[in-house]
């Protein structure tokens, strides 16, 4: 619980620090920092996050991803025991009549899936980093985490992606 509070206040700090950049007009920085990015997680360029906690890694999609998807109405998850590979799909979400593949940021074996998402797929929208977690994985190559983005890098990545249209 304490970790969550710390992470949230860090996210707020990130938002505030974005807004105070002198070369960005306030409205621009507000919309760019609208999505929450949590410190302490690692991020893939396909907008999944991973939290490494000892021997288990928890994976989900980011606030930026859920915002761009719209309301999630269906989640397809693998069975426990199934292997996952970095960058490859492990499941899918459906929103606004679009199914979007979800890719694993790391390789390993699925040890647990969030069965709450079957009845309440909207948890991905309302709580993408907590109750909306998707799978837990036993990582096979922990060094893969080093190839992922940290929170600052991912925040910048999102800004650049959103600016490109």
């Amino acid at each position, binding site marked *: 619980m304490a970790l969550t509070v710390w992470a949230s206040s860090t996210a707020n700090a990130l938002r505030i620090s974005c807004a105070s950049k002198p070369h960005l007009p306030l409205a621009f920085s507000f919309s760019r920092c609208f999505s929450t990015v949590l410190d302490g997680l690692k991020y893939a360029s396909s907008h999944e996050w991973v939290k490494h906690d000892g021997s288990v890694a928890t994976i989900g999609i980011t606030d930026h991803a859920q915002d*761009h998807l719209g*309301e999630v109405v269906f989640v397809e998850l693998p069975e426990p025991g199934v292997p996952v590979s970095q960058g490859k799909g492990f499941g899918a979400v459906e*929103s606004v*009549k*679009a199914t*979007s593949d979800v890719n694993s940021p790391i390789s390993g074996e699925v040890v647990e899936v969030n069965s709450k998402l079957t009845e309440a797929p909207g948890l991905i929208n309302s709580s993408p980093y907590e109750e909306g977690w998707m799978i837990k994985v036993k990582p096979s190559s922990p060094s893969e985490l080093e190839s992922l983005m940290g929170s600052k890098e991912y925040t910048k990545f999102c800004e650049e992606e959103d600016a*490109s*249209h």
Partner: protein
Amino acid sequence: MRGPVKLEVWKMGFVNYLDALKLQEKLVSDRKLCRIPDTLLSLQHPPTYTLGKRRTDHNLLIPASELKSIGAELHYTQRGGDITFHGPHQAILYPIISLREIGLGARNYVEKLESTMIELSSLYGVKACAGQKGETGVWVGERKIGAIGVRISHGITSHGLAFNIDPDLKYFKHIVPCGITDKEVTSLRRETSTVLPTEEVIHEQLISCFARLFGYNTVVWKENPSLSSDHEEIE
């Protein structure tokens, strides 16, 4: 600011559903590897019912075994959305485009597909609008004129939209279209008093609306492309 953006349009005429699906899978893979530009398939299908990833079979109101007797096929797909019908005189667009390159998420992409059909409808004086929450698609009042079902894999789109020019609406009676009860399906023919031009013209207008809304400044047309899509042909 985006640089010049090219769209390659394949005018395919009448295509069997599975053939189109196989072609899309190949094109998605090619697009992911940047072997081809953003590509748009424009076509029509023979009578075909399709289900999305959620496999909502309960919305098919006749036994699957009877489909052949009404001249229709049934296919299960990985797209989003519920059950729908495709058939002659319904304009289909399957964009195979990279959403990451144009910075669109699923929601914005689908909204632009809705706008494409809304704009086309307005060319004929038909006031269409996007659905309310949970009812993605294009509506004229309470009647659905256009449907959307999309798949996004590694940021590349497949499947797309279906716009009713003048399909045989009786086929829709065998399903709960898009899983929405108590709402009718309609067509451009039904909603406008304007004399419709040939379907080829309407397809081209739909493509133009798409190209404009998505910001393509170069459109390359490919007539009668082969379903087997080898690279030499694209050059």
